[in-house]
């Protein structure tokens, strides 16, 4: 889905625009622990290891899909990247600048380039503001595009996301879920960013509406050369939109590679189990696919297992898995996998 269009960005004094394929975002050793407090004096009695040592890079113009089940840390990771959540440890380097220690004021500038679209289009739009106010708010905060120009830009943005400028005078409650998500996307584009973090952008929408929004996101990416961090639990959807995919389990990336590597030649048992568990829309395949049904539940991130975090549900687990954390490295299959016993299993052979 990467774009080859070389549209020039919105001019003015802003951070250097990363060319296609160049590194735009790098995360190094990112850790986020949330304290668990209990008792009369709210003493800290433990911590939730939400994100526990993640390294990732995003290149300009690509879509990196981040998949995993609830509680794996994918949402925390995406919010830490844009510093809605402060990281406990690690580095976030965006467009060549280390933004880890940036203040709120400094982050404001970064957020011109990096925006986030939330899952719930009912909760993420202020019900007391008109659509025009919502979409122009980022410009107001940043003092960009005054008067007439701002008004024109809102109309243009609304048209870009498939709404009409007349919609600007209405309130969010007058719109359906899909239309609200379009409003959220228009707002995220208001400052002409380089990168969007999309956190489950369609999972709250009706099935027949999802494809509309996905197609919109794909055409916007081509038009504006956007870089996407696409967070979702729906594996078919992530396959459809992503160039590269990272699979998370209990706060760690367990496997990362190109879309075809992850879906065609997964090497981590967790990835294999995930893919085999997805129901396939083809009744003639029923009973013909080998399904890996994992036993047990995801362990608590407050007290993750030693060694490999997946070992408590893994059919390959040996002694070494309890003792040694498997590093996320290429084990001879062309892409990194955090399994001591990584081997390719083709899911759709």
């Amino acid at each position, binding site marked *: 889905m990467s774009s080859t269009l070389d549209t020039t960005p919105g001019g003015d004094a802003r951070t250097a625009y990363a060319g296609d394929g160049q590194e735009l975002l790098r995360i190094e050793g990112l850790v986020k622990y949330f304290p668990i407090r209990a008792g009369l004096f709210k003493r800290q009695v433990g911590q939730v290891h939400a994100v526990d040592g993640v390294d990732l890079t995003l290149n300009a113009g690509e879509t990196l899909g981040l998949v995993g*089940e*609830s509680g794996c840390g994918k949402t925390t990771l995406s919010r830490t990247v844009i510093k809605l959540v402060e990281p406990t440890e690690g580095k976030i380097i965006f467009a060549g600048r280390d933004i880890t220690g940036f203040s709120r004021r400094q982050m404001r500038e970064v957020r011109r380039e990096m925006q986030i679209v939330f899952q719930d289009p009912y909760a993420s739009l202020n019900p007391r503001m008109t659509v025009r106010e919502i979409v122009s708010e980022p410009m107001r905060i940043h003092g960009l595009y005054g008067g007439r120009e701002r008004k024109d830009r809102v109309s243009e943005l609304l048209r870009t996301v498939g709404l009409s400028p007349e919609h600007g005078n209405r309130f969010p409650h007058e719109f*359906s879920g*899909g*239309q609200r998500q379009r409003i959220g996307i228009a707002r995220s584009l208001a400052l002409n960013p380089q990168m969007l973090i999309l956190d489950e952008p369609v999972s709250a929408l*009706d*099935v*027949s*509406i*999802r*494809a*509309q929004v*996905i*197609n919109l996101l*794909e055409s916007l990416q081509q038009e504006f050369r956007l870089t996407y961090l696409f967070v979702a*639990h729906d*594996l*078919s*959807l992530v*396959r*459809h*939109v992503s160039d590269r995919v990272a699979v998370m389990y209990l706060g760690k990336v367990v496997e990362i590679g190109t879309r075809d590597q992850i*879906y065609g030649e997964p090497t981590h048992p967790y990835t294999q*189990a*995930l*893919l*085999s*568990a*997805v*129901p*396939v*829309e*083809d*009744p*003639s*395949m*029923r009973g013909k696919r080998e*399904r890996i*049904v*994992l*036993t047990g*539940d*995801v362990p608590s991130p407050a007290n993750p297992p030693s060694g490999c975090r997946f070992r408590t549900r893994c059919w390959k687990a040996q002694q070494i898995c309890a003792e040694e954390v498997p590093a996320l490295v290429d084990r001879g299959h062309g892409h990194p996998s955090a399994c001591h016993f990584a081997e390719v299993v083709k899911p*759709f052979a």
Partner: protein
Amino acid sequence: MPEPATAREPVLSIRDLTVEFSTEDGVVHAVNGVSYDVYPGETLGIVGESGSGKSVSLMSMLGLIPTPPGRIVRGEALYRGRDLLKLKPKELRDIRGGDIAMIFQDPMTSLNPVLTVGEQLSEAIRAHNPDVKEKEALSRVVELLRLVGVPNPDQRAKQYPHEYSGGMRQRAMIAMAIANAPSVLIADEPTTALDVTIQAQILEVLKAAQRETHAATLLVTHDLGLIAEMADRVIVMYAGRVVEVGDVMTIFSSPRHPYTTGLMESIPKLGGGDDWLRPIPGQPPSLISPPAGCPFHPRCFLSNGRQRCRTEVPPLRPIDERDHLSACHFAEELIGETEGLGARSPEGVS
């Protein structure tokens, strides 16, 4: 495949069911003349988006919609010859949880937080079998929990719902639903709140429960993957109407309603190509003032503004010999267009 399920007597027959809700904005026509049969032992998938009436039709049959604002305008729901819509609340209570049991989407809100799982299960058993002694009920509870794959069922029975994980709660719900060996099991989005690896476990449990009880299962979902995986027959609903009925292979390999084909084309497939998705244009219709004629016509690629689609409600009619029904005036035009849309392999490979 053995003899087709449809050759037998239906265990449940819905006839011309019509349900409305009064709201401040007007009357919501939630279910409009819905008819279908459920046969013993089959899994009937009911697909539709939110607002399609798939849940309301089932809830109203079991007396579970609040009246008012809800109102059953007309119709019948025949269970073994008795019309459920005419039963007294007490009679309906005896059937609910006994002959007809339900599994809901959200197990946390469907279980009582102040009773242990064992107490709730034993209550469910004894409510329908007053002669069963407490001790006997308890041993049955442990047996049920074991059947649905709850580890250490003796200890787990003494725990409260909050001590269970999401997947375990859903297992407890299934145990409760099958406690009285129902002949109809209604599973309303049973795995929507669960992660995919947990969903796979629950589907196995559901299949095991069905094997054990031989219950006809109504699987209500918006997930076509689940339908392909679980259902024998499929009902597709749109705007409070049934728009297509058929066996699962037929529905996926040769859909004959433009809404069904639209749904199949709009979802990304795990093993699919790189093409753009083909969304269904527009929005689901308002149920307060639904479009005249076919409710799907404003979004339909087949209608093309034809007069008949705009004025005449298409009846659900047989379109071939395989008990395949479609509510489209021009269903025949889809022949040859849609083959192999849902399925990657040719039909009849089952």
